[in-house]
């Protein structure tokens, strides 16, 4: 039987820091449970992490200059000055985007290393994957993806789901990522002047991925109605200042969704629709299933999924209640460690084990990419796969070996691996791992073996 202390720091954590397992001995469930009452530990702030309004203003300025320079270059093609202006405008914009990404990735990773509430950070990673966006889709996304997680995910992981849903759906990052920028209803003021059509992408993913689930009982007509509710909402990330809700892109009027007619107007309409979607039983079920699958395994006990669903509906979508139901369920603590630790979590766990307090953002970014999990770069709006064996193919495992070698060689020189193994796992240290570490030919190899040991790979 797997010691619960080990389960607490792996299945419900981001891997042990030295001493963690000894400290929580006796009450591993309580250790995880108590974290649910410290929602603020999900928050990240910092002087180099501006809010999305500031980012938008900066972007509008940079993009405006860029657009102007491009226009004048087009007009005066062979002009040296025009070319220089264009190149420096492009450089300035792209550099700003790169700097924001480096700051965001660095801060997120450092927070993962430092936090004493790693379960809360796991909830952040889970919800960020539920509301997946892609950092590399466009220049805009390079600017706002980090802010999206800080503003629309982190404040709500232990709050009500409806608040997270409202925050994510209307955030510049989501509106841009799922193509709601430029979604203009045919029957809007602008649409009547020039040929337009709504873009269905955000509406569809809102229903299919974020709320009801693919089997949630909605139709193509519902998708189109939701797309009309959303039309006009935009990121404002363009060359000109623009309000977050463009009235002239929106066709005002009642919309019928899942049999209910919404007679509210504009901003009140989207609020009402999102509130109802958040409370729908199909949403409760969809989210409960995903949560159980994420923490327990591909085939979670149906009773656990039922309990989570019940808790969701009884509390009106209170994610702390749902999370507590998960943590306090025996089923969530039993069973083997079947789920592969995803690459980003693994990179965090390696740093925690080595007592690092930061790594160069570029190293973190490239390492995650090499291990096949680009940070904020999932393969689709459905996020990263979450099945038990995801990310763990033969070649992927060899990449992990190469990563552990690089990280311990470059950043872990002062560590004694034998002592560290004992501090990390205490009595839960597998004797074969202890032996392999002790017999390694050098420190670096010992660290590779320790960080590659099963407790770091599956949870």
């Amino acid at each position, binding site marked *: 039987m797997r010691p619960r202390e080990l389960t607490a720091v792996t299945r419900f954590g981001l891997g042990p820091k030295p001493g963690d397992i000894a400290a929580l001995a006796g009450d591993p469930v309580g250790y995880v449970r108590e974290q649910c009452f410290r929602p603020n530990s999900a928050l990240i702030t910092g002087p180099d992490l501006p809010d999305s309004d500031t980012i938008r203003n900066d972007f509008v300025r940079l993009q405006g200059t860029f657009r102007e320079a491009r226009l004048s270059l087009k007009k005066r093609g062979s002009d040296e000055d025009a070319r220089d202006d264009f190149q420096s405008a492009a450089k300035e914009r792209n550099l700003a985007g790169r700097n924001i990404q480096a700051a965001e990735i660095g801060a997120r990773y450092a927070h993962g290393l430092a936090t004493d509430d790693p379960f809360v950070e796991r909830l952040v990673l889970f919800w960020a994957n539920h509301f997946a966006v892609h950092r590399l889709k466009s220049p805009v996304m390079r600017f706002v993806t980090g802010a999206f997680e800080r503003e629309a995910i982190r404040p709500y992981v232990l709050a009500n789901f409806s608040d997270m849903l409202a925050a994510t759906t209307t955030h510049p990052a989501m509106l841009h990522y*799922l*193509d709601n*920028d*430029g*979604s*203009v209803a045919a029957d809007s003021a602008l649409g009547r002047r020039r*040929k*337009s*059509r*709504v*873009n*269905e*992408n955000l509406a*569809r993913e809102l229903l*299919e991925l974020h709320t009801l689930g*693919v089997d949630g009982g909605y139709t*193509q007509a519902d998708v189109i109605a939701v797309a009309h509710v959303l039309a006009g909402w935009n990121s404002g990330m363009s060359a000109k200042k623009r309000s977050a809700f463009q009235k002239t892109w929106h066709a005002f009027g009642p919309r019928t969704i899942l049999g209910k007619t919404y007679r509210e107007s504009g901003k009140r309409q989207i609020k009402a629709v999102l509130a109802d979607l958040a409370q729908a039983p199909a949403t409760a079920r969809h989210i409960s299933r995903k949560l159980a699958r994420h923490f327990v395994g591909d085939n979670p006990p149906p009773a656990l999924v039922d309990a989570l669903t019940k808790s969701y509906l009884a509390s009106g979508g209170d994610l702390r209640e749902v999370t507590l139901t998960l943590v306090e369920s025996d089923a969530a603590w039993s069973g083997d460690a079947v789920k592969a630790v995803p690459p980003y979590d693994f990179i965090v766990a390696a740093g925690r084990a080595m007592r690092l307090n930061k790594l160069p953002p570029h190293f973190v970014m*490239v*390492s995650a*990419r*090499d*291990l*096949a999990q680009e940070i904020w770069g999932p*393969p*689709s709006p*459905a996020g990263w796969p979450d*099945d038990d*064996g*995801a*990310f*763990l*193919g*033969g*070649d*992927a*495992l*060899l*990449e992990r*070996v*190469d*990563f*552990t*070698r*690089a990280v311990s060689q470059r950043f872990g020189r002062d560590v004694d691996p034998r002592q560290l193994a004992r501090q990390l796992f205490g009595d839960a240290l*597998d004797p*074969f*791992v202890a032996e*392999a570490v002790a017999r*390694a*030919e*050098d420190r670096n*190899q010992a660290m*590779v*073996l320790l960080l*590659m*040991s*099963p407790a770091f*790979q*599956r949870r």
Partner: protein
Amino acid sequence: MFEHPTRRGVLTGALAFTAWATIPKIAVAAGPRDPRLVVVVLRGALDGIAAVAPVGDPHYAALREEFAFPTSGPDVGTRLDDFFVLNSRLPTVAELYGKGEALFVHAAHSPYRERSHFDGQDVLENGTTSPIHHRDGWLGRAIAMLPGDSTIASHGAFAAASSTPLLMRGASNVVTYLPAGLPAASDDTRARLLSMYEHTDPVLAGILASGLELEKVTGSESEVQMEVDAGMMGMEVGGRDRQIVSAATAAGRAMALDDGPRVGFLDMVGFDTHRGQRVIDGQLGNTLSGLDTALLALRNALGDTWRDTVVAVITEFGRTVRMNGSWGTDHGTATVAMLLGGAVKGGRVIADWPGLAENALYEGRDLAPTTDLRAVLKGALRDHMGFDLGPLGTTVFPDTADVRPLDGLIRS
């Protein structure tokens, strides 16, 4: 510190994990051909009428407006026949078509009729009519049904993915490969790790062993990278295409060997063109260009084996026939599929063309489905890989006895 002798030799002897490492090299199977099959899944739903444009359809130009295919100028595509034109971002495919080594099936469709990518891809890969089935895929079941000592089953399957894709689940011997860029740990470290896993976690031991065996077949990452660079002959391979091109090169290298895998899998994202799809210079054109480069790399790496190869390029569904307000297209129904390779009887577009008139569209918005993709795949599996038709209609594609395979896709 002193140098250790390489342990590669030791590993080779000790880790008889994948079959092709242990089976003595024997002459290829009797018969004129030792077939190779590569399945390329395009994720996100390829817009079939932008890749292979039905310029002969009287409604096409009006539906696509300024994004109809140009009929003159530098971007004019390749005329496939008097009805269809191939997108000019697919020059390798065009060259293959000219040699009779590329064939298109238009208005092709899977049995899936909703519009979710994820369910659509599951149906495309699992070979059933329902997305619920995740246990195994049609190619995995096909391989599993062969006797263990047959050429195809004993040589295993190759997947460029971080874990076994649904398409190949069910086959017992799938190795996965994903190119990346960190310097490799020593063979000694790897051997010790393997030994540790054997004592602590047999699942991880099996995964690691398969990775080590695979590397022997494909060569190390730097070798693959050199081949990519050489194979491209100075052609610029953009950053976002590097992974698919490396994967295609590795697949080709492995599958070209006498004792290499006979069946391969690649996939590629970027086809969900809701915005800025355009036709040649937008997201779709760029993604098609990456696909084309990867196909060129695959062909080059396969070398002479190309003549015994069929590459099936498939996608979960198509896109709306009209452009949306963002110069893109939304989720649709029928699309185009491609068969490429020296074994393909190509130079043709096969289409039971439904037409683009308003009343011919599926639900008033999509290209109507007319040719079942499973008929195409059955035809290739039967005539190229030598599968019997009976089990193709039950085990591989359940309940499809009435879906007749397309005849004559493969050179005899």
